[in-house]
């Protein structure tokens, strides 16, 4: 445990605020998929950087927790590094990149490839919590629709996809129905990750800072992706395995290599990819680092 920065309360937020957020979380867990309003605070980062997720993480974090933060599956991009440092500084908790070791995982738009376990909590950063928003701009109306379970409109969106593209072209923020009741936006995760939400042993919490909403999926809750009988839900498929670790059946990112059409597909989950490479799996484009490059990153 690193030394706590003096002048901050544990995990930045004051205790009253954390209690308020915890109450919202409890309500959200009690009504799976229901968007609970909460008094979102100003955070020392701009909206869109995960202020909702950070507040949820701050409210649930304890001194013994091990935190992992990912951004598009990656542990080492700006957003992930900043949030990890933020909690190192204000809460002094241990951080990790290993999915299996983490007790709290804050994520922007991915669910790790390593299956989550009981006792783990995953916190999603949500930009727009209302799945019906782009179809129905009135908040009063969408609340009525949730209240009366009128979700036909969501299928209008999927119909439009098929009519325009020949298949359901929504690839992220793919709407799901939670526990047979509430329609929910799984935040802009790729639809590849939707099946991982279903009956997950981990607690899933969603925080939207700007929109001031918290919602949740308790462990072992049914999560069904919407579809049509004759156009069933399908996850993204990739032609090739990961170019670095040869993993199949994982979500891949496209990396442009040059301006002549060169590209490679690599695991979006960097921790998963590194673990596999350490185990000796080799993708077709994995090279050897020159001898002067240290193989172990400095801790």
């Amino acid at each position: 445990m690193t030394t706590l920065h003096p002048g901050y309360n544990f995990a930045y937020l004051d205790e009253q605020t954390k209690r308020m957020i915890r109450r919202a979380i409890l309500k959200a867990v009690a009504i799976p998929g229901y968007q609970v309003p909460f008094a979102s605070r100003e955070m020392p980062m701009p909206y869109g950087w995960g202020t909702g997720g950070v507040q949820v993480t701050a409210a649930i974090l304890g001194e013994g927790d091990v935190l992992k933060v990912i951004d598009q599956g990656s542990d080492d991009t700006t957003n992930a590094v900043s949030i990890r440092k933020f909690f190192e500084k204000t809460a002094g908790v241990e951080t990790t990149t290993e999915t299996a070791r983490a007790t709290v995982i804050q994520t922007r738009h991915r669910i790790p490839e390593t299956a989550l376990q009981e006792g783990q909590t995953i916190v999603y950063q949500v930009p727009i919590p209302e799945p019906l928003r782009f179809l129905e701009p009135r908040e009063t109306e969408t609340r009525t629709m949730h209240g009366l379970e009128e979700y036909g409109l969501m299928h209008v969106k999927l119909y439009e996809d098929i009519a325009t593209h020949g298949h359901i072209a929504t690839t992220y923020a793919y709407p799901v129905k939670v526990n047979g009741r509430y329609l929910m936006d799984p935040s802009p995760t790729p639809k590849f990750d939707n099946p991982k939400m279903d009956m997950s042993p981990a607690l899933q919490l969603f925080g939207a800072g700007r929109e001031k909403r918290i919602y949740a999926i308790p462990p072992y809750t049914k999560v069904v992706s919407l579809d049509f009988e004759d156009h069933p839900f399908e996850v993204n498929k990739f032609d090739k395995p990961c170019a670095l670790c040869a993993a199949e059946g994982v979500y891949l990112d496209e990396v442009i290599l040059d301006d002549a059409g060169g590209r490679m597909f690599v695991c979006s989950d960097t921790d998963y990819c590194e673990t596999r490479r350490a185990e000796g799996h080799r993708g077709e484009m994995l090279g050897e680092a020159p001898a002067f490059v240290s193989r172990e990153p400095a801790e």
Partner: protein
Amino acid sequence: MSALTDDLPLLTVDRLGKNYGSRIGCRDVSFELYAGEVLAVVGESGSGKSTLLSLLSTQLQPTAGAIRYRMRDGSVRDVFELSQAERRFLMRTDWGFVHQDAAQGLRMAVSAGANVGERLMAVGDRHYGNIRHAALDWLGRVEIEADRIDDAPRSFSGGMRQRLQIARNLVTNPRLVFMDEPTGGLDVSVQARLLDLLRGLVADLGLSVIIVTHDLAVARLLSHRIMVMRQGRVIETGLTDQVLDDPREPYTQLLVSSVLQV
């Protein structure tokens, strides 16, 4: 026609009234509407006909009176005592509402096919092929070419939008349709075509229609019965031809005689 032989009224309106503060929106309106019947409500601007239509379609709460509706299962219910969920379900299955401005009744940003299919999806249809087939069928019935099914109504002419709105409403086979000046804002030849189409659909489907209009020609062409309103009250009611050919009330006489003869 079997629908006409139904001996119970579909809709019973009993001394319906609405006040806006001390002003009268409409007062003491009573009538019965039977299955397959078309009722026109005519009157000048401010006569209370729009208020009446809003009350009938439960968009406004009345200050007096009651509306009873015979549901599909045969039970007669006071529409203002239905739960919000039941009322909204009624609005998108057994009832239809055709707005004067098609943009109010359509989703302008989604395709014509999705506009027609929305009600089907709202009542639980989850088969894309069936929804598409129903949409194509209905577009054909309102004379919209099949190749426009994936176009947004933004790209449609005024007359086409109005026909699309009608298809969108009729796809769930409603028994009662409210129409608010459906031909308003259209030019005369387009109006004539729309009226023709409406007349055919109403007769084929045995629809009950309450149509609000200030255009007596529309009332003449479409309706069986007519109700003349003035200052929030119904001043004359009867068979359309009878009222228009032989108006009894001085105001109705004035209304009929003020129509330009070409």
